[in-house]
């Protein structure tokens, strides 16, 4: 398929402004990994203030400007900036671009046997809009007043009256939303139109299904946030008051203006995106785990069809649960009950998927490879995240737990040891496809064990802090008696975070050294069945040497009466 002309592309067209989905996928992966590391560093800084409030930050404190950390002690406004930017970077610049932009871009076309995405130029545009959006976000740190400091949820009126950083944040968000819009259109068209011959929808690997649903969520849930962002931007720069009610008295000054806006409107628009966004984060990781588990248990995924129906149902339901983030905004009990009920319903497909993934282990021949370790850890970690979601989804227990550390613990269990472990599994699993070399097993195992221990050390204490009633986003929780009582947990959690940072060193070393030193492997090192393994490693421009034709489902492992324990989708049946 590869065209002669492609070999004559210059450096810029080949590696920077490339339209090849694989190059774009790598660009997304590298950029988002850098952002993940950066977002994580912000967190490590915050954890110092939390653990040792009012003490000078060691080493780094001397380098911070006087306006944000006089004498090396961070100011509350800087702490709030770090909090808001940590959330934004991790969600919008880290995990989503890695799961969708990175893995989705690189492996979805390969898994469906396509030569490229349906709109290669749009794909390139999507990456560059994302990159520019990310840069704009970063400039927030350098404007007067620092980066956005009203939380990643940017609730007005606080965000309306916040410093300039919030405006920068909003402009950055508009770029990121536009980028994901381009991406999602591209993904859906590619999945529907460019599947290889014989690859019916029910022969798609689950990863592709996950990307398909994710793309729909992005397509339909992001625009309301864009609308909200535009409205907030105008509130800030054009003197409107969409989110400002009448008669505000801010810092003692009566705001004589039109007023008439509604702070709740923002929350509706934000969470209308916010909840589908959770599944945008989760589904790609779930898809990766669903690829890694069959390949390493050497047997088909349990209940493939029920998983697919579950994920479709999940995608649909995620649009009607948003107000469970808003139980305390004074909504009526009827509304609360409705959203609590939809929340209970949406937990069921997740239960189905997790159960099916766990049951896939039964009577397998389990290989504990590094990606498998991460995929296995994903299951109980996401389980903890899900189970602790129950008390938050029920309005009565949410009254007590809302806006406490319990919430932080809950969604971090979903995102950090859950989703991020899934993404790590993906990196270890697909690294040989991208580079032709395997990552080092020993370093990988060290990385896994340390990450697993320290992840739990960071987030488990948060449940106890939350139960003790400590509010989230507190610069110094020892102000409260119930906060001082659990301050030792905060210290434990902080040390966990710093050790978790150190635990990523083996990964970073492994990631770069394996490019040159890793064990060279053939096109299908895991002896897996899906189409990406039919292409050479790394795949050339146009992906496949001969266009594959698909004859069977995605996970035909250990088929009885065959000599091999795997039966690739494109392989001809033995006569």
């Amino acid at each position, binding site marked *: 398929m590869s065209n002669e002309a492609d070999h004559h592309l210059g450096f810029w067209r080949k590696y920077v402004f490339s339209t090849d989905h694989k190059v774009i996928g790598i660009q997304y992966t590298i950029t988002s990994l850098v952002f993940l590391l950066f977002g994580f560093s912000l967190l490590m800084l915050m954890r110092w203030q939390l653990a040792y409030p009012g003490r000078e930050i060691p080493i780094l404190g001397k380098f911070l400007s006087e306006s944000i950390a006089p004498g090396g002690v961070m100011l509350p406004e800087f702490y*709030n900036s770090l909090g808001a930017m940590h959330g934004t970077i991790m969600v919008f610049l880290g995990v989503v671009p890695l799961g969708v932009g990175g893995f989705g871009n690189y492996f979805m076309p390969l898994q469906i046997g396509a030569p490229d995405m349906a709109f290669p130029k749009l794909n390139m545009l999507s990456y560059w809009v994302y990159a520019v959006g990310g840069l704009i976000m970063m400039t927030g740190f350098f404007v007067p007043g620092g980066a956005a400091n009203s939380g990643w949820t940017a609730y007005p009126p606080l965000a309306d009256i916040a410093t300039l950083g919030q405006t920068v944040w909003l402009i950055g968000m508009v770029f990121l939303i536009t980028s994901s819009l381009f991406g999602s259109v591209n993904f859906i068209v590619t999945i529907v139109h460019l599947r290889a011959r014989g690859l019916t929808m029910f022969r798609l690997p689950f990863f592709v299904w996950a990307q398909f649903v994710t793309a729909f969520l992005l397509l339909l849930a992001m625009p309301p946030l864009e609308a909200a962002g535009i409205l907030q931007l105008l509130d800030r720069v054009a003197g409107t008051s969409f989110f400002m009610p009448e008669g505000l008295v801010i810092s003692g000054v009566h705001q004589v203006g039109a007023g008439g806006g509604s702070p709740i409107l923002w929350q509706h628009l934000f969470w209308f995106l916010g909840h589908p966004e959770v599944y945008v984060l989760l589904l790609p990781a779930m898809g990766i785990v669903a690829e890694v588990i069959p390949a390493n248990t050497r047997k088909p995924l349990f209940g493939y069809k029920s998983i697919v129906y579950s994920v479709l149902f999940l995608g649909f339901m995620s649009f009607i649960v948003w107000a469970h983030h808003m139980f305390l905004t004074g909504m009526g009990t009827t509304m609360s009950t409705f959203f609590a009920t939809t929340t209970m319903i949406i937990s069921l497909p997740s239960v189905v998927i997790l159960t099916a993934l766990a049951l896939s282990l039964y009577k397998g021949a389990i290989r504990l490879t590094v990606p498998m370790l991460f995929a296995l850890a994903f299951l109980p970690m996401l389980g903890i995240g899900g189970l602790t979601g129950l008390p938050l989804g029920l309005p009565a227990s949410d009254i007590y737990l809302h806006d406490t550390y319990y919430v932080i613990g809950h969604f971090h269990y979903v995102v950090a040891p859950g989703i991020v472990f899934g993404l790590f599994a993906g990196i270890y699993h697909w690294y040989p496809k991208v580079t032709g070399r395997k990552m080092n097993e020993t370093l990988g195992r060290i990385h896994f064990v340390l990450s697993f221990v320290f992840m739990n050390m960071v987030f488990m204490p948060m449940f106890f802090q939350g139960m003790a009633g400590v509010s989230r986003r507190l610069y*110094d929780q020892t102000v409260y008696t119930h906060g001082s009582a659990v301050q030792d947990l905060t210290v434990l959690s902080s040390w966990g975070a710093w050790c978790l940072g150190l635990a990523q060193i083996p990964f970073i070393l492994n990631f770069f050294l394996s490019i040159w030193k890793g064990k060279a492997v053939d096109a299908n090192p895991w002896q897996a069945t899906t189409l990406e393994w039919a292409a050479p490693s790394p795949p050339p421009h146009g992906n496949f040497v001969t266009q594959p034709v698909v004859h069977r489902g995605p996970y035909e*492992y250990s088929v009885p009466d065959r000599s091999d324990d795997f039966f690739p989708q494109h392989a001809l049946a033995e006569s």
Partner: protein
Amino acid sequence: MSVRRLSWRTIVVLVGSVGSTWLSTSAFGQGAGADEAAVTIDGEYGYGLPPDVSVHGHEIDRLINVLHLFGFITLVGWTAFMGFCLVRYRQRPGRGATYKPRIKPVHIYFVVFIAVFELILDIGFSNPVLATAKQKLPTEKDRPIHVRVMAEQFAWNFRYAGPDGRFGRVGPQHVDQVMNPFGVDPDDPNGEDDIVSGELHAAVGRPVLCQLSSKDVIHSFSIPVMRVKQDVIPGMRIPMWFEAASPGTYEIACAQLCGNNHYTMKALLVIHDSEQAYEEWLASKAASELDDEEFDEDEFED
């Protein structure tokens, strides 16, 4: 700006009692120790739920405990199953995987069990508690203590109706940060005897009915020991109620990020052991307001 307002308060406080809360409002992050020296917060605090001193809080505690018990059992069972599979079905030479093994439909039972369990929790446990908290507001028959709560960056203000039992009209144009934080209309006779306090006082045996409103941004009125929490949203007046079961001094927190000094937005909740003691406090508060004093000495003797 907020800094200016805080220093105003600092001056007022310094005149009254020797710097008891000075550190908490002016020096970042040093507040806790100084505050606790002045006020003793009642109850034992630790890793679990804080003490429950409310009449209805045990229902929420029960729900939380049931959920965690259920979660713990599920997780242990889940992990045990995974552990079993990992040990029993590790890849060994000469033994492959079973292609689509036949299994009993335990997974279906499991999902159905979860669904039924969640339904029971939702309808049987959560809804009644929610109805108590949100809908069964105390009526006049219950003789509630009516309190208007005004949140602002970064303080809570409480207003009692005074002897006439009527609250004065408020308007944002009348707000004076120190003298009139609620913006009570000076021309409204109902407002003349209104009592404004920086602490919430109540008595055992009488429900407290708060009407929450905010001057500037969204706050969240949280009293962990009463198991109540309610967002305070500018432009809205939201009712919230609780009833204390035992006397003592407790903390009120802001649970929603409301600005730089969000963490300092704390107030005290004082529950008197008898109605009489509460009335005495109210009377002394009213008397001190009539004396046209900005601060009240009693406030710092708790």
